[in-house]
């Protein structure tokens, strides 16, 4: 497999960025490809290329348009895609993170709405959300959030029509076919179904968050009474 490079499309995204989207029918291959491209760009340390933000099937490549240009970076990215052998990329042993969550109520104000939308009970939503380990696909906003594939809900979850101005740290949310934990308070347009008492982000540590793309994360339900007892404990790998 992968004797041919993963096909990509490159889109202009202003004068200082390009969006590269992997378009093979295989989602896992696309994910591996954009992360491999991001790592390669980082290693190559090309003059004028600031870095890359890989997510699920795309990577945003940011550059300084004084030193290089969208045309040059596009050519370089396409060259890179031809050079990269994704199958040979060394597999890192994923670590496992277990995340306790209080679902619903003040902790998860959108839980009922999500249940209604999916045609499931609240218990059914919680059961699906806690049913499997999720691969952390990328670090996203805000503050290095672990972005994952969503639970096996029947339907994608719509984003809020009017995003909240502030969602608290620890909020556990879903949107579309994605799931996330907010490491820090920030505005948010996702449906908040619960909250973890654990501290995800430590601004005094390097790295700021304990996980990396490729690690595994699983949620389990705890009663609201346990929230205060666990509050402030730091998220750590369990295995």
């Amino acid at each position, binding site marked *: 497999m992968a004797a041919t490079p993963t096909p990509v499309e490159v*889109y*202009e*995204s*202003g*004068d*200082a*960025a390009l*969006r590269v*989207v992997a378009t093979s029918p295989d989602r896992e291959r696309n994910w591996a490809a954009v992360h491999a491209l*991001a790592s390669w760009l*980082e290693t190559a340390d090309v003059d004028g290329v*600031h*870095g*890359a*933000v*890989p*997510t*699920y*099937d*795309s*990577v*945003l490549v*940011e550059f300084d*348009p*004084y030193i290089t*240009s*969208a045309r040059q970076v596009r050519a370089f990215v396409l060259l890179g895609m031809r050079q990269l052998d994704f199958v040979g990329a060394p597999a890192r042993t994923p670590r496992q993170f277990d995340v306790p969550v209080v679902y619903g109520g003040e902790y998860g104000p959108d839980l009922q709405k999500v249940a209604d939308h999916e045609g499931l009970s609240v218990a059914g939503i919680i059961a699906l959300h806690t049913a499997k380990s999720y691969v952390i696909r*990328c*670090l*996203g*906003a*805000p*503050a*290095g*959030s672990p*972005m994952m594939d969503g639970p096996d809900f029947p339907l*994608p*979850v*719509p*984003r809020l*029509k*009017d*995003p909240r*101005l502030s969602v608290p740290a620890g909020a556990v949310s879903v*949107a*579309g*076919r*994605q799931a996330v934990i907010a490491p*820090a*308070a*920030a*505005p948010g*347009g996702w449906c908040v179904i619960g909250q973890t008492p654990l501290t995800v*982000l430590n*601004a005094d540590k390097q*790295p*700021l*968050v304990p996980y990396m793309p490729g690690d595994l994360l699983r949620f389990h339900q705890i009663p609201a009474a346990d929230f205060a007892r666990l509050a402030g404990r730091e998220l750590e790998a369990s295995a």
Partner: protein
Amino acid sequence: MSGTLTIQQAGHAVVTDLGRFKGPRYGLPVNGALDQFSARAANILAGNLDNDPLLEVTALDFRMRADTDVLIAVTGAPLTLTVGGRECPQWEPVSVLAGETVAIRSINTGLRAYVAVHGGLEAPTLLGSCAPDTVVGFGLKLSAGTALGARKTVPPIKQPYFDLPLFRLGLSRPGISARPVIDVTDGPDIAEFGDTADLLFETSYTVSGRSNHIGLRLGGALPERQSTAEVLSRGVPVGAIEVPSREELLVLHRGRGVTAGYPVLGVVTSRSLDALAQARPGDTVRFRKTTVAEATARHRAAMRELEALRTSVNTVFGLLGVGAPASWRELKPASGS
């Protein structure tokens, strides 16, 4: 020799630099000076590297006392600058004597000013940048009494002959208007907005008071997305124009979350992001369509202006002995080197 500056009135000032360019890879926004041209110009005028830590003063009055002799330069929004009570010019190097107060008042047009201090300021860094990150809670907090470390002191520079302005460095200052025209290139998802995308260029938008370094919120005629399919989160560039709510347009600035799942209608050019950094609540913005090639050319022209400024500053500072042991008083005729 290093010195200190004591904050007397902090207003909304922060110590920042050009940004945390390694941040986005780890889910952190680039942040840094919102008006990059003015920030670079301030540092160059103060004889610094473009990326040295400097002060970004937003909207409110600001005062600090120099406890040692320093050289500063103030750029950005038009304002009243006084040093020891004397009114001083912006966009020029200014000598400050030990004990004198630097005061910035009356930012009425534009929003952000930059104060660079020769040698740069001391500030802790995260991923190589001192730029505050309000979401993570990183950054030097300034309040009355905070002592800022200045890395160098500079003896006062005086005009030896007449009471003429010391420097005529010939930088054309960016025009700051309450009705800025903002250049935009097509976003990667413009097709999702169908014909409504053109609305962006047909009407004007009003800057909302809820705007900040994360993004500007603009009221006006809103283009509408034609599909409702959920998109996977992806990296979004600084300058991305989105329509996330039914009320406002959102233009992401340097504090933006690095990923989002809203389609990107357009992207504000690097040059126009500087202009947006100076837009005040209530200002009226118009968008103008441009191409990436044109935007790149404009950005490069501005950067070449800054390079020319650097050459002039280096020449003048070399003659005056700023940053070197000699001063103009000791210059000998035709010394050759």
